[in-house]
């Protein structure tokens, strides 16, 4: 082994020269990093153009040994090659420093795409809530329990082997390994209120909330059904519609306890040996805001509820002392987003509140408001196999899909409902243990109403890890981390989903233009924000050709996080001729375009936990300054004036060149200084 390493090092040394100008010199392990008994394991992925990837007449293992040795030469640590992961990535092993320290050194190499500590994972804690994994099939409950929260089965596996999970399951367990939710994150559930006495809502994370239902005309309380208007009691008195109350548009029905069902999916106490588990694991706080009563609720009350939940003032109502970061609305109505919703949602998203809403259940028709409103994360429903469930609405407004429950069979118990907390009362609530029930295979929970809280709960976990995320970032991260929709496995002969045309559209194979970016994967969503989030700040007001444009890292850090490496790249210079002036591995850079147009700049960061993040910024560059006002009048005249203009322009250009040279010199100094600061940060 030692001979191989020496030979490899010699061979690798010949590859180092081309990189000498853009990578730090090999250095021995700094005193502060010495950890004699440590064995460091790092997963490294090389950029496609890395000289270390040059093919040699060796086996794959031999090639990786050579790569490890070459890399080790550069970072000053003898590296062995571990398991290969792909043509460009494998594990390297070193001694005398920690995995994170080695990852930071390797990540600083210019031809390394990322380097992260190859850390041990522990057995994921599975909730002990009896309905999460029923040991015996409940008399009325689904034998698969809370299938929708579990890790999906291996791709391509036979359905007979799925057990208590399914391909559309949202993979919450591994997310809980990262976070079980922070009480600083509040999710407001705008719905029918809640049954506060349900045993699965006794975890101390259910806030009092508010009842936002105003009187009907004539000071009647028909909708509210609690004998009063807006007040601090968000408990659900029931929303049953008696025969005498029913109309053509509001059918007779039993009480739904809908708010208890949706809120429990986000905030039920978890791993407490009682009932069900929830996406938020009982860690995030949930806040009922009652806006729906008999036959639904008024837009004005819903919008007041949105504002109050977000901490914005509502006339006549005390301010919310525990503003929400996420709002879930499992409700809808008309298709087009009303101006009042546009205003309200715009204000709350500007305040940093993520709004999630259900698509609607009209069987493949257009997405309903407020899900159709700008800024809302609209959620469609998929069946257990990942196809669009018949009732779900779809369209380009959908951001993502999640399970909404489906029965598979036309008769007998429903096989894949969304199990959640409820009450047994058909009109008024039944108190105590007899009233506290869970929906099941007979008393089913089905609808996009139940897809939306799963996404809202995921957003709450993401914010628990990374509280600085904006609503737009939450949406983007949910989407990029979503799993792709299946193209097989649905009911025989079903079509591919199409844009709504006013005709019912039942089960179909989802596309990204109809059902959003993919199927919710909570673990991937949380992992995608579990580190420093790269962000670029453009500090030059008007990017102009032939002038230095300053960019700085505006990356989002949590306490305990630091950035150990920066890498700036011009991904596409377009017509601008943009190039980075000076160092490309500092916290800021200067770019000097030579012409108008647009270019794309990328910042990639690696943090002290080995988390890699990148972001891009599209920059529009305007032309150089126009002729100054002092230009002689002749310059603006036609014909012979052109000569004067040319002279003026040449003088301007000369001045600009001198200015640019000075600016570049200053910028180079500044960049060097910032780079040094970043290196200091790594030493810390």
């Amino acid at each position, binding site marked *: 082994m030692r001979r191989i390493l020496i030979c490899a090092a010699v061979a690798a040394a010949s590859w180092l020269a081309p990189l000498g100008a853009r990578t730090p010199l090999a250095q021995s392990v700094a005193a502060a990093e010495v950890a004699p008994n440590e064995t460091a394991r790092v997963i490294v992925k090389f950029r496609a153009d890395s000289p270390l990837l040059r093919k040699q007449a060796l086996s794959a293992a031999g090639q990786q040994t050579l790569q490890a040795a070459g890399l080790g030469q550069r970072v000053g640590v003898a590296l062995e090659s571990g398991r290969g992961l792909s043509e460009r990535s494998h594990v390297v092993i070193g001694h005398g420093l920690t995995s994170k320290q080695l990852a930071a050194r390797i990540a600083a190499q210019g031809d390394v795409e990322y380097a992260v500590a190859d850390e041990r994972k522990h057995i994921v804690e599975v909730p002990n809530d009896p309905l999460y994994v029923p040991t015996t099939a409940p008399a009325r409950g689904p034998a698969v329990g809370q299938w929708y929260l579990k890790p999906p089965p291996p791709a391509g596996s036979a359905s007979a082997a799925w057990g208590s999970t399914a391909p559309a399951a949202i993979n919450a367990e591994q997310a809980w390994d990262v976070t079980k939710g922070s009480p600083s994150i509040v999710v407001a559930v705008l*719905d029918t209120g809640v049954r506060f006495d349900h045993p699965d809502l006794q975890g101390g994370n259910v806030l009092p909330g508010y009842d936002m239902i105003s009187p009907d005309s004539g000071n009647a309380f028909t909708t509210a059904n609690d004998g009063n208007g807006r007040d601090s009691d968000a408990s659900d008195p029931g929303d049953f519609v008696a025969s005498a109350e029913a*109309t053509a548009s*509001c059918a007779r029905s039993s009480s739904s306890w*809908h708010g208890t069902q949706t809120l429990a999916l986000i905030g039920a106490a978890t791993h407490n040996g009682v009932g069900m588990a929830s996406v938020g694991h009982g860690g995030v706080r949930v806040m009922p805001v009652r806006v729906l009563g008999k*036959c639904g609720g008024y*837009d004005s009350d819903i919008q*007041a509820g949105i504002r109050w939940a977000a901490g914005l003032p*509502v006339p*006549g109502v005390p301010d919310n002392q525990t503003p929400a970061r996420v709002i879930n609305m499992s409700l809808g109505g008309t298709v087009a987003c009303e*101006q009042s919703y546009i205003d309200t949602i715009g204000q709350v998203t500007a305040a940093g509140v993520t709004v999630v809403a259900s698509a609607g259940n009209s069987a493949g028709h257009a997405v309903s408001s407020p899900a159709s409103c700008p800024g809302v994360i609209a959620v469609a429903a998929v069946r257990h196999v990942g196809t669009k469930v018949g009732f779900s609405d779809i369209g380009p407004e959908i951001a993502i899909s999640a399970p909404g429950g489906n029965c598979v069979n036309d008769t007998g118990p429903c096989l894949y409902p969304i199990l959640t907390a409820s009450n047994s009362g058909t009109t008024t609530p039944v108190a105590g243990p007899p009233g506290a029930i869970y929906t099941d295979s007979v008393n089913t929970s089905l609808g996009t109403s139940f897809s939306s809280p799963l996404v809202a709960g995921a957003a709450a976990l993401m914010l628990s890890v990374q509280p600085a995320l904006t609503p737009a970032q939450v949406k983007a991260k949910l989407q990029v981390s979503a799993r792709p929709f299946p193209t097989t496995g649905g009911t025989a002969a079903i079509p591919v989903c199409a844009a709504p045309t006013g005709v019912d559209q039942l089960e179909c194979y989802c596309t990204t233009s109809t059902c959003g970016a993919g199927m919710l994967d909570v673990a991937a969503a949380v992992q995608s924000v579990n580190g420093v989030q790269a962000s670029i700040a453009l500090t030059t007001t008007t990017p102009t050709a032939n002038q230095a444009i300053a960019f700085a890292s505006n990356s989002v850090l949590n306490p305990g996080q630091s950035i150990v490496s920066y890498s700036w790249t011009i991904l596409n210079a377009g017509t601008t001729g943009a190039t980075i002036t000076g160092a490309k591995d500092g916290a800021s850079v200067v770019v000097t375009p030579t012409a108008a147009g647009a270019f794309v700049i990328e910042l990639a960061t690696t943090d002290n936990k080995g988390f890699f993040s990148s972001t891009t910024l599209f920059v529009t560059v305007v032309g150089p300054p126009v002729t100054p006002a002092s230009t002689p009048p002749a310059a603006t005249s036609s014909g012979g004036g052109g000569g004067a203009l040319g002279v003026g322009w040449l003088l301007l250009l000369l001045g600009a060149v001198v200015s640019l040279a000075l600016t570049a010199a200053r910028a180079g100094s500044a960049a060097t200084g910032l780079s040094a600061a970043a290196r200091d940060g790594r030493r810390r």
Partner: protein
Amino acid sequence: MKFTTMAGAVASAAAACLLGTGLGACAAPAGSAGETSAVVRVMVKLAHSSEDVDAIAAEASRITGIRVTHAAATSSSWHALAVHCASPAQCDEAIARMRAAGTVYAVVETDGRKARSGS
């Protein structure tokens, strides 16, 4: 397949009726206020924010020429008003007058209803 369609569940008030105007959801039966046969709830965005609900209602009554009461506030800009009409045609006319009062109302729209999207 078991599911509840939202279309069938989109609701108006318990004793609601739908006017043929495409705008008004009637939220109360006739007989409660003189000649009133229906009450239409609208949402207005005030051109100049206010929380004086009595003044807002009085101004709406003046503009429409019929009784308008303040139903609920969403913010200092957006308010729900109940327009008490004697007939659908009168509702239409009242709403048209409110929409024409651009210096008072930036937006006039239905205070519609939403329903839960699941069983």
